[in-house]
């Protein structure tokens, strides 16, 4: 579905991606992990058309994305839930969800407003509130719900757990799992590598703008280097929270 080939891109004059290649197939949940500044967000923004690429290819369902404007990429069904939620705080919760439909273009919706509210009941209860007045977790749900309103074929999530309490992170990740099980293709960028690797089927590790490791999520999670660099300091938490 998504095929990235030897992608190079710069951000603020510094080369942030050095020939990244990556694929996401239909129905997969792929995790992209790496340290702060490894180029994860730049990669997502390159895919979404916000950061221009210098060279390489991004193909979505066989169509070249580079050179397209962000709005047109969104309307193809390639939707990003950006880092820090980026909800439209001056607009109401309801209006935020309605705006999500803009990405539909000529495509038909896959998620109705009712279904989204069923998934995140809090969005129904607060639909007339200013989105800016929601808590961080509620805002994240709104951002995901808003993405669903646009009938995504591929959902890009940038750090959905950032700044959220562990309990809320659990909720968000369980929703992502359910969505994926229901057939939604997801590319998940996370600093919380351990959690990401738990729910993803495959994973890529990005370091200084290059893919240094990739493979099935459990294989990556077992890699010594990955454990040392990305999972090591979370070992205590991991022992409490073993997957079933």
């Amino acid at each position, binding site marked *: 579905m998504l095929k990235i080939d030897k992608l190079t891109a710069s951000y603020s004059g510094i080369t942030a991606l050095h020939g990244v290649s990556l694929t996401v197939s239909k129905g997969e949940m792929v995790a992209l992990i790496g340290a702060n500044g490894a180029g994860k967000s730049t990669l997502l923004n390159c895919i*979404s058309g*916000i950061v221009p690429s210098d060279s390489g290819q991004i193909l979505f369902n066989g169509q070249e994305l580079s050179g397209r*404007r*962000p*709005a047109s990429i*969104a*309307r193809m069904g390639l*939707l*990003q839930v*950006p880092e820090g939620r*980026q*909800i*439209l*705080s*001056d*607009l109401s919760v309801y*209006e935020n969800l*309605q*705006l*999500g439909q*803009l*990405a*539909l*273009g000529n495509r038909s919706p896959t998620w109705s407003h009712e279904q989204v509210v069923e998934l995140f009941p809090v969005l129904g209860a607060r639909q007339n509130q200013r989105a*800016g007045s929601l808590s961080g977790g509620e805002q994240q749900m709104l951002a995901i719900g*808003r993405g669903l309103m*646009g009938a995504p074929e591929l959902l890009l999530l940038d750090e959905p757990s950032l700044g959220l309490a562990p309990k809320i992170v659990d909720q968000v990740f369980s929703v992502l799992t359910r969505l994926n099980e229901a057939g939604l293709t997801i590319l998940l960028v996370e600093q919380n590598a351990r959690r990401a690797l738990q729910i993803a089927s495959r994973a890529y590790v990005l370091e200084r703008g290059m893919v240094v490791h990739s493979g099935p999520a459990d294989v990556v999670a077992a890699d010594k280097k990955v454990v040392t660099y990305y999972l090591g300091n979370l070992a205590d938490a991991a022992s409490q929270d073993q997957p079933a």
Partner: protein
Amino acid sequence: MLAQQLFNGLVLGAVYALFALGFNLVFGVHKIMNLAHGAIFMVGAFVGLYSVTLGLPLWAAFLIAMVFTGLLSVMIDFVAFRPLRKTGDAEFAMLIASIGVEMILVNLALRASDARTLRFPFGIVPVEPFFLFGMRITPLQFVIAAVAVLCVTLLAFYLYRTSFGRQVRAVSSNERAAMLLGVEPRMIYLQTFFISGLLAGLAGVLIGLAFNSINFSMGEPYLLRGFVVLILGGLGSLRGAVVAGLALGIIQTLSVAYFPTGLTDIIVYSLLFAVLLVRPNGLFGDAVSDARVARR
């Protein structure tokens, strides 16, 4: 006299609000302080006058002036602001660019008019006043008040009840997030600049008609007042622009009516400072500070 002066103030305030709406729309949505707004307003008055001089009926002159200034405003965005926007953080550069545009337009008008003050021909609008609750109201005063109410209503409807308006507010709240949702910012810039120019042109023709004078420098005092309205109402708040515009009109009129005339500006600006001491973000400034936080 008080009732009459309050009404006078209300009409003047409606004019300020009309002027400030477009000014504030562009600032509120795009964070562009377009100091050429006064010049666009002036061009509107001239285009309206030339249309009437060419023998067109007044309604057509309004229409032509509004479309002309709407397109002019879009063109200014294309030529002066868009290239700067591409370079990233350019709020200050755009402010300077807008001053440049203002100077060009004012000087063109100076040349075209030979620095003369022009006016609409007599009899183009009825001047016979009517009386209401002891107040003397000219048809034009009534029209200005009505047009202001209509414009505010239409703008509010557009922004809060239509899909386009929702997109405009989305860009205002967070341009990048809006882009990721499929909003095409170029279309939004086109709309806001067109509407802003259109409102400026409308205000220009109305004021040219109401106050019998059209000249190259007519935009400057209104720009200054528009600025006061913007600060007083809260940067980017359209509700604030309306309330502050009306308040400014009434305060200014009452101070002219009851105090020595030389003190008017002193009174108006002292009150502005007093309001800012109590509410540093203006009367309706809070919403914007939220938007700003989200933007970072």
